[in-house]
């Protein structure tokens, strides 16, 4: 590896066994049962084919990053982005290949990793800092800066379980942002918080890149990728499809249809174990004719359907979504038990498969691309599942209010509002 190269990987691959994952041999009983079955299979002809299926989450990935360069990684869910970051941050080992990293790697695979709800903000800064690889004196030296950045100084000695989710995220990001590794690996941290805070985070990320550190940045937020990185690689099905200047890579990604579908399935390995007994199955956008579609019209009602399975009963469950712009600005949030009647009817849901369906009325959204984030939680009890980038879709505004003027209208919504024009006498 040359002196000014910061990351160097050759032929990196990672194989998972899905069969083994789906019916995970988590208990000894499973192992005994499957071993016995295998032995039984020996005596039966032809049935000895293993049920195990192997998938390469990543295959033959090679690239280099020069010191001080910011590289974007683009790809839809399941393309292998997270696996790549996990390998680079040494959380998991590759199955094949070789790589070298120069210097300390700081990974922000999720802000707030290791935060403990019972500890105060102050205590969590130290704990989280240490987990992220900072030395105690480094944390002490930057403590005031971190608190300042997080804007929670008044609550710094309050346990973080009493924080609002916004405060929690701000504090978590503040710690992470003050980490100063030679290589910073960032995954989607910018999808959180309000627009103001996001701007601040983007600024901080820009500073990191400007200060000569190497940044690897994974995001679904294409404008952030274009702004923060000079070059990007596009991943699909575990392979690098393209490496190009970021604007070119973003175009390629959007036009190749890599991002389009109108429907999203959650793979087994995308669902954290902590989400049980809630198991998301699909989310889809359905147009007025009942077809799954990536592109809908503003003048028609749009249906958002979330399918999920409960492997056990859940009390107080609410399943819903956040609607964001592609820049990550929230537009609105809605849950299936928002209405008083449904809230009473579904105080508890027994195990089974469900579909929660929501109709966004006609004349609601403006033209553009939107992102749906899914949330399944029991208020104040547990957040079972959350995916801030579950699905994206486009809205076409033709025929909507005001389209007689062919000019773009700012704003995420485009309601057809009632106007009255009165004549108040003539001058």
């Amino acid at each position: 590896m040359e002196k000014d190269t910061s990351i160097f990987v050759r032929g990196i691959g990672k194989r998972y066994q899905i069969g083994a994952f789906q019916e995970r041999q988590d208990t000894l009983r499973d192992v005994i049962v499957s071993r016995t079955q295998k032995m039984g299979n020996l005596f039966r002809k032809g049935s000895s084919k293993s049920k195990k299926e192997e998938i390469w989450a990543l295959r033959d990935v090679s690239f280099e990053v020069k010191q001080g360069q910011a590289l974007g990684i683009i790809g839809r869910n399941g393309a292998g982005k997270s696996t790549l970051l996990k390998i680079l941050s040494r959380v998991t080992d590759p199955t094949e290949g070789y790589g070298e990293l120069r210097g300390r790697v700081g990974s922000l695979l999720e802000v707030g990793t290791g935060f403990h709800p019972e500890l105060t903000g102050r205590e969590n800064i130290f704990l989280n800092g240490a987990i992220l690889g900072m030395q105690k004196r480094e944390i002490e030296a930057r403590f005031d800066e971190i608190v300042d950045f997080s804007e929670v100084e008044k609550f710094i000695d309050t346990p973080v379980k009493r924080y609002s989710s916004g405060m929690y995220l701000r504090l978590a990001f503040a710690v992470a942002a003050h980490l100063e590794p030679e290589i910073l690996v960032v995954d989607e941290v910018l999808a959180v918080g309000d627009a103001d805070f996001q701007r601040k985070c983007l600024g901080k990320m820009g500073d990191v890149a400007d200060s000569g550190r190497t940044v690897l940045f994974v995001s679904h937020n294409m404008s952030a990728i274009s702004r923060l990185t000079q070059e990007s690689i596009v991943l699909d099905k575990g392979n690098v499809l393209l490496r190009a200047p970021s604007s070119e890579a973003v175009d390629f990604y959007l036009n190749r249809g890599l991002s389009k579908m109108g429907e999203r399935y959650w793979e087994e390995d995308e669902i954290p174990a902590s989400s049980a007994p809630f198991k998301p199955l699909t989310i889809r956008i359905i147009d007025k004719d009942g077809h799954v579609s990536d592109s809908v019209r503003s003048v028609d009602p749009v249906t958002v359907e979330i399918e999920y399975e409960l492997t056990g009963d859940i009390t107080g469950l609410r399943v819903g979504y956040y609607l964001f712009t592609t820049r990550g600005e929230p537009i609105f949030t809605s849950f299936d038990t928002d209405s008083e009647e449904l809230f009473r009817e579904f105080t508890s849901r027994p195990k089974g498969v469900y579909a929660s369906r929501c109709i966004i009325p006609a004349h609601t959204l403006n033209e553009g691309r939107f992102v749906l984030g899914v949330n399944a939680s029991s208020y104040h009890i547990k957040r079972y599942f959350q995916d801030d980038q579950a699905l994206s879709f486009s809205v076409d505004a033709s025929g909507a209010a005001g389209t007689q003027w062919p000019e773009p209208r700012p704003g995420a919504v485009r309601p057809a509002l009632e106007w009255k024009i009165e004549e108040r006498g003539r001058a």
Partner: protein
Amino acid sequence: MVEAKPLTSNQVVTIKPAKGWLGIDLQELWHYRELIYFLTWRDIKVRYKQAALGIAWAILQPVLTTAITSIVFGYLLKVDSGNLPYPVFTLAALLPWHLFQLSLQKSSISLVGNANLITKIYFPRVIIPLSSVLAVLVDFGISLILLFVAMAIFKVSLTWTALWLIPLTLLTVLASLAVGLWLSALNVQYRDIQQMVPFLLQIWMYATPIVYPITIIPEGMIRDIYSLNPMVGVVQGFRWALFGGTPPDMSLLFSSIAVIVLLISGLFFFRRMEKTFADVV
């Protein structure tokens, strides 16, 4: 071992498929000492949060167990405790036992309990069971006060041999760490382990001379096999260090050897399993 040892800005870290058996990298562990400290500190801080009695539980737990065993075994079953009052006899054994038991309970579930860290951040995984054992050591330190109070009440005087408590405590910590390494790594794959631990501990407790004196175990072969249980040497050593009597014999040597074998094999096993933790947990 080319990998690991991060830090200085120009150090090159290698990424490649890990193969075979790896030893423990002490230098890397030393580098991560502050993380060990913070995780230990977290475990201590969090354990008694929102418990009205707080850290007093560190004292209350052995007091209650001593009371129960004293009533059942000392008073009702009239187990022979030599020339010591039964409560003191059993308390001296229960303290190191509690250290062992709690350490094992905490460390065996530690990796699964910290799954969110393991799947997000790199650090030597052994830090997790290690810090959960260290956190229990602090409780143990507090509960020692209790022992000295009890000794004062029952007018048992302290001698210089009490200094033996230090190596004996170390042996207990190493023993629980050794077993904890095995169980925590296994528990990542097989959650049966966490169901088994309570029973394992129950059997282990009765296989240790805590509520009864060692003299009821026949000497010779049986006693030698019995002494392979590291806690036999520890408990006998504790009684001797505090109250005198027969000094620990070969049993302590057997115990120490058993601990060393378990610890080294545990470390290798742990390192071998470690690579798959993030994928399996």
